[in-house]
């Protein structure tokens, strides 16, 4: 079997080498996946292969694409292959589509300009492609009128229209919820089944598992492990790969659900809410007991976060009411946000933000240091701005900030959806551990049903059909 694409000793330099020599071959009908966390260099490797490295970076080594050998140090020859032989399915397709051009035209370009068809023929072919992807109605729409999943499919059609059989998919599932993610995987696999070549870059272990084929794992610019996917994932040789697999919520040890005890301190009765004329939910009852961990799952846009905000009185319910029992003051009810950088004042240091809080409530500043140690936060981080620490660190600072107030209830709104797997596991472990220790009830929202199953005492599932299932603890 001849390879569609062979990369030989590809390395990337900024001032120093940031991607170590990497070699891989891509075969027709066999997906190749590069798995790695943010900053592992996986995207740079793909860009070097594709010839799209940003300014200031340069590559060495060679790639052979469809029998044509290109020296990356020379940096020429890619252009004539783009669209015709090899193409990119970009990250965040919403941004990769021209905001002022209708969907069909963006696809037809490939037929018109690359394959040289007439305007009418190009439009017809584009329409057929879109129809095949279930987008017949979307052909006259602008990107802003498409959902994330639809934009992904339009971008896919546009990337393929020039006739390229090799597709490099850069984080194709980023920002998509589970159902959409399955669609994209099916789409990519269909392409491979027809004999195309597919190189996927991802941080998503589940995606890598589903793609099958060959898998390379990257860490700090080095491919640490490479081989058939089932072998790499089934019998990982490198400690990091093992750690990564363990960090998948599916492999977490089962938690020990606890029965609710004590009088409920937060009660929602018959709560309902509409948004934009659409009813999200109604008649919702929930009693939160001290120290219990309640998981919430459901498809995106079903009102999970809205429900949490209503419990915190950040939003008023349209119907029903929320009561706080036991005379707890308002500051005992706190929230962790999905995107940690947006939850801190941008232009003051973390130290200032935390000291402001200490001063406002007359807290004991001596508690900060041991708590930071518990949260594995280095003291030096205090003097940075929120944008200058990693997402995982900042989310732990957010946890520190609320824990200083000894909350009785914490609404954690997708607290780890922007974090890498290993960081996510650390964060969730700390959250559960500290909440249990301080008898702080937690309402945790996640799109990851597996994660919720592992950490919560009981679950609420928003089904997206205006009602919901409440699931009691797994066998206690």
């Amino acid at each position, binding site marked *: 079997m001849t390879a569609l694409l062979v990369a030989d000793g590809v390395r990337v330099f900024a001032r120093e080498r940031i991607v170590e020599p990497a070699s891989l071959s891509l075969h027709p009908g066999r997906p190749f996946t590069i798995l790695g966390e943010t900053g592992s260099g996986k995207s740079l490797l793909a860009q070097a292969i594709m010839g799209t490295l940003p300014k200031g970076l340069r590559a060495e080594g060679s790639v052979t694409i469809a029998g044509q050998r290109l020296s990356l140090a020379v940096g020429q020859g890619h252009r004539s292959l783009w669209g015709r032989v090899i193409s990119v399915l970009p990250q965040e397709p919403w941004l990769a589509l021209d905001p002022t051009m209708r969907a069909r035209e963006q696809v037809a370009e490939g037929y018109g300009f690359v394959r040289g068809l007439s305007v009418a023929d190009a439009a017809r072919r584009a329409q057929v492609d879109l129809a095949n992807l279930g987008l017949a109605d979307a052909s006259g729409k602008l990107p802003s009128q498409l959902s994330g999943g639809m934009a992904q499919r339009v971008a896919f059609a546009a990337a393929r229209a020039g006739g390229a059989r090799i597709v490099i998919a850069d984080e194709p599932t980023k920002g998509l919820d589970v159902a959409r993610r399955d669609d994209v995987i099916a789409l990519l696999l269909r392409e491979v089944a027809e004999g195309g070549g597919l190189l996927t870059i991802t941080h998503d272990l589940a995606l890598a598992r589903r793609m099958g084929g060959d898998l390379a794992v990257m860490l700090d610019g080095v491919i640490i492990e490479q081989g058939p996917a089932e072998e790499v994932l089934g019998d990982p040789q490198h400690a990091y790969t093992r750690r990564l697999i363990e960090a998948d919520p599916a492999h977490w040890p089962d938690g020990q659900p606890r029965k609710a005890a004590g009088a409920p301190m937060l009660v929602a009765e018959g709560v309902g809410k509409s948004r934009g004329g659409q009813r999200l939910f109604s008649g919702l009852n929930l009693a939160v007991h001290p120290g219990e961990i309640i998981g919430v799952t459901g498809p995106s846009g079903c009102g999970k976060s809205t429900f949490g905000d209503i419990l*915190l009185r*950040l939003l008023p319910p349209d119907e029903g009411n929320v009561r706080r029992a036991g005379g707890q003051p*308002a*500051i005992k*009810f*706190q*929230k962790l*946000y999905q*995107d940690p950088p*947006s*939850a*801190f*004042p*941008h*232009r*003051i*240091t973390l*130290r*200032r*933000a935390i*000291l*402001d*809080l*200490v*001063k*406002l*409530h007359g807290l004991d*500043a*001596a508690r*900060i*240091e041991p708590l930071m140690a518990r949260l594995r936060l280095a003291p030096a981080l*205090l*003097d940075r701005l929120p944008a200058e620490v990693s997402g995982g660190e900042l989310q732990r600072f*957010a946890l520190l*900030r*609320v824990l200083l*107030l000894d909350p009785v209830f914490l609404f954690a709104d997708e607290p780890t959806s922007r974090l890498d797997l290993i960081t996510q596991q650390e964060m969730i472990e700390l959250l559960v551990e500290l909440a249990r220790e301080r008898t702080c009830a937690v309402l945790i929202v996640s799109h990851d049903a597996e994660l919720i199953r592992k950490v919560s005492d009981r679950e609420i599932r928003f089904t997206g059909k205006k009602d919901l299932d409440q699931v009691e603890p797994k066998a206690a």
Partner: protein
Amino acid sequence: MMTATMSSAITASEPKRLPVGRIVGFTVLALVVLFAFLTPLVWPVDPTKQSLRNVLAAPSWSEPLGYDHLGRSMLARLAAALRLSLGLAFLSVLTAAVPGALLGILAAWKGGIVDRALSVLGDVFLALPGLLLVLMLTAIAPDSPWALYVGISLVLWIEYFRLTRATTRTLITSPAVQASRLLGFGPAYIIRRHLWPEIAPMILTVAAFGAATAIMAIAALGFVSVGVRPPTPELGLMMTELLPYYEEAPHALLQPIIAVFLLVLSLNLIAGRKAQ
């Protein structure tokens, strides 16, 4: 104890580096300001005193910038004109910035009827191009710097209003402010830690642009002879007066031109490239 050490560590944190353009801008502006305000101290000559035998005399050691067409000291006149422009611009910017920014925050914070009323008020002053408004005010109160001052301030405040309103609106609904409120912080804290640090750099930019606008407007009105009344030295008026003598004394005409250029350039540099 710990609080104290932590605070001192914060003040010691590394300062933000200013972009080169801004440093140049501040330096040039400082030099112009020094020239304008130090000259009368070291060179106490009446800018309106005429001496006919010196008409259009070239610069010399005794009179570094020469004389104009009525034999008046160019040095004294240039410094006086700069003081007028700088003073009026500074006053107008200050008058516009404080209420403009406060009203912007108020509109975004209160929303509803307050917001709409203030926005309509802004639209009223935006309806006419600024210079037209100033021109009409000078027609109401002829030959008075006060008409210029009021007119320019009325034109400038809207920019502060719109900017702070837009920024406050986005910030006020952000998770960061929501989090601060949940943590128990009040409006004063939100203004001090969330709004002000975001707004302050923008205000500097808008203020620098506003001052540049004011200086150009004053000069433009002086140039078409509807601003201040002769013999008051004013940069635009000086250009009109000296234009007929360009052939004999190009140095005289070039002086107010260079002065306006340096002032506006320095202010544009301070404002930075990003904003328009």
